C-alpha cells in the first residue's frame, strides 16, 4: 500500500471543475512534484492533501488512514508556503517551536528540537531574530524548519522558491532536496518551474486544466512525453506536421522530405496526419554521417546565447530550432545559409493521434 493515496479526487468551485479524476499513489520517502502552468489545479490538489480545501469527490489516505474529512490541524502535515507565512510577532526560534508549543511539548524538548532544526537549515545564529530581519532565502529556510519541527508524516511545499531570485533559488532547491533525503520524509512539491521539478523530484505529475497529463520520473517525462502538452511544457520542443507514409516501417514525410521515426509510430495508420516532436538539442547542423535522418533547409534566425547558439532552420512549411555550441574556431551560421540538419531515428517521436486534430 502506498504511503499517500489520492483516489479519484475531484474539486469544483461552483460550475468550474478545478481538479478532475486525480489519482496518485506516493511511496514512503518519495519526492513527488506537481508541475503545470498557472490554474492547472496543482495547488488546489496540494491544498486538499493539506486539508485547506475539501474534495468535491474522492478520498485521500495518508499511511492507510482516511484523512479526507480531517481538519488541517489533525493531519500531521507540514506545509511550506510561497509567501513564507512566518509569524511576524515571533522570533525565528519561536516560529520553529510554535507547533511543538501548540502540542504542549515540554520546554526542554522544544528547545532541543528548535536547536536541531536550526542546525539542519544552517541558521543557528539567527534564533533570536525576527522575520523582518531575515532575507527571503533565510525566511524560507526558517519556514522549512518550522514545518519539519513537528515531525510531520508528509511535507508539502507550495511553490516555495518562486518569490526568490534565481541564484538563491538554485542553492535553496539543493538544500531542500538534501534535507528531504536526510530525513527521508514523503514530500509533495508544487511548482511551475520545470527545471526545479526535473532536478529535485523522484517523480513528476504533469498537470493541465485540472487533469493529470503524465506521471513519471524526470527522465521519462523529458525523454518520453506522452502528449504534446507534456512535450511542449517540459523543455523546448519542435512540433512538426507529418504524414505517415508507411506505419509498419516507421516512415513519415515532413515537408515532402522522408523521415524515419521509431517512437510513437506503432499505433499510427498509413496516410494519417500526425504531429512529430523533436528536441532542439537532438538536432545537429553538421552532417555527422551514419544512419540518421537528414533534412535540407535554410537558416532563418540565429540567436547568440553565450555558450550556445539557437538556430532556426526553415523547410518549406515547417521550421525547427536547434542548439549548437559556440565554437570560436568555426565560422558562425549565417541567416539565409542553405544547410542540412541531422537527427537520430530515435530522437523524433510521433505524438498521439488526438494531438494533430
Amino acid at each position, binding site marked *: 500500500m502506498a504511503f499517500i493515496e489520492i483516489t479519484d479526487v475531484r474539486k469544483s468551485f461552483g460550475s468550474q471543475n478545478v481538479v478532475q479524476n486525480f489519482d496518485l499513489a506516493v511511496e514512503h520517502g518519495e519526492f513527488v512534484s506537481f508541475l503545470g502552468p498557472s490554474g492547472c489545479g496543482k495547488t488546489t490538489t496540494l491544498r486538499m492533501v*493539506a486539508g485547506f480545501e475539501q474534495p468535491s469527490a474522492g478520498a485521500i489516505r495518508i499511511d492507510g488512514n482516511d484523512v479526507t474529512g480531517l481538519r488541517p490541524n489533525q493531519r500531521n502535515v507540514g506545509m511550506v*508556503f510561497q509567501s513564507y*507565512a512566518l509569524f511576524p510577532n515571533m522570533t525565528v526560534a519561536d516560529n520553529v517551536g510554535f*507547533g511543538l508549543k*501548540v502540542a504542549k511539548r515540554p520546554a526542554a524538548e522544544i528547545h532541543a528540537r528548535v536547536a536541531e532544526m536550526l542546525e539542519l537549515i544552517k541558521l543557528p545564529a539567527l534564533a533570536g531574530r525576527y522575520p*523582518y530581519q531575515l532575507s527571503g532565502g533565510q525566511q524560507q529556510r526558517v519556514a522549512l524548519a518550522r514545518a519539519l519541527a*513537528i515531525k510531520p508524516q508528509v511535507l508539502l511545499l507550495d511553490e516555495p522558491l518562486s518569490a526568490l531570485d534565481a541564484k538563491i533559488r538554485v542553492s535553496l532547491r539543493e538544500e531542500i532536496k538534501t534535507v528531504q533525503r536526510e530525513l527521508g520524509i514523503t514530500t509533495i512539491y508544487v511548482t511551475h518551474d520545470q527545471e526545479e521539478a526535473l532536478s529535485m523530484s523522484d517523480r513528476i505529475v504533469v498537470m493541465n486544466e485540472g487533469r493529470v497529463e503524465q506521471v513519471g520520473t524526470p527522465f521519462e517525462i523529458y525523454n518520453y512525453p506522452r502528449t504534446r502538452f507534456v512535450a511542449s511544457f517540459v523543455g523546448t520542443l519542435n512540433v512538426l506536421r507529418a504524414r505517415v507514409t508507411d506505419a509498419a516501417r516507421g516512415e513519415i514525410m515532413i515537408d515532402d522530405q522522408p523521415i524515419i521515426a521509431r517512437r510513437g509510430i506503432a499505433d499510427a495508420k498509413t496516410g494519417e496526419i500526425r504531429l512529430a516532436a523533436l528536441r532542439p538539442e537532438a538536432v545537429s547542423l553538421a552532417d555527422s554521417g551514419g544512419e540518421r535522418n537528414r533534412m535540407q533547409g535554410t537558416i532563418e534566425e540565429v540567436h547568440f546565447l553565450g555558450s550556445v547558439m539557437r538556430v532556426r532552420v526553415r523547410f518549406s512549411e515547417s521550421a525547427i530550432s536547434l542548439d549548437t555550441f559556440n565554437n570560436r574556431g568555426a565560422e558562425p551560421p549565417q541567416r539565409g545559409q542553405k544547410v542540412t540538419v541531422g537527427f537520430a531515428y530515435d530522437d523524433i517521436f510521433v505524438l498521439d493521434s488526438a494531438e494533430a486534430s
Partner: protein
Amino acid sequence: MKHSRLGPWLAIAIGAIYFLVPLIGTFEFSLRMRRGEYSFDAYRIVLADPQFQATFTYSTCLALASIVVGVLLVVPTAYWIQLRLPRLRPVVEFITLLPLVIPAIVLVFGYLRIYNSSSLLPMTSSERATDVLLTFSYVTLALPYMYRAVDTGLRSIDVRSLTEAAESLGASWPTILFRVIFPNVRVAVLSGAFLTFAIVIGEFTMASLLDRPAFGPYLQLIGANRAYEPSALAIIAFIVTWACMGLIQVFGRGARLASDKR
C-alpha cells in the same frame, strides 16, 4: 512657483487660526480666575472636586470596558470576514458606519424603548445593568473607528497564509486568534482603543439620558453653573484626547518602522 505656494500656506494659516484661537482663548480665560493675574486656580479647583474624580474614573472604567468588549467583538468579526466571508465585507462596513449617520439621541431613545424597566430585558432597572447598557452603547458609537482600525491592520498582514500556517502546525482557532492574529494587529487594535477612549471620555448624550454619572454630563453641569472651571475642564478634556491621538501616532510610527525594515 512662489505664487502657487501662497495658497496652501494661506489655507494652513486660516485653519490654524480657526482651530487655535478659540483654544488659546479658552486656555487664557481658564487662567483668569484670580483677579488681575494669571493662575491655575480653576484647574486646582476642578482637579480637587470629588465629582470630577468620580465622573472621570467612572468614564475611564466604562471606556476600558467598551474597549475590551469592542476588541472582542470586532477583531474576530473582521478576521472572519477577511478570511472566510469577504463577500460580506460591504454589508459589515455599512453596518459599522450606521452609528455615524444615526444620531446618538435616536440610539438612546431606541435603547430606552427596548430595554426599559417593563421590557423583557430590563437593562435600565438597576445601576449596574444600565452601566452594561451604556458600555454596549459606547461600543456601538465607537464601532466605525474600531472596525476600520482593525480591518486596516488585518489587511496589512497575510491573514490567510498565517492562519493556514498555524493550522498546519496543529493550532486550534482560539490559538490562532490569540497567539497569531491578535499580536500582529496589536497596533491597529491600540489605535481603535485610543479612539474609543477619546469618544467615551467626553460623551454626553447617552450617559445623560441613561442618567449615569459620567464625565460628559459633569462637563455640562459645570459649564452651566461656573465661569472659569468649564474652560479648565475643556482644556483637560482636550489634553486627554490629544494624548490618545499622540499615543496612536507613537504606536503607528513604531509599526511603520518595523514594516519598513521588512
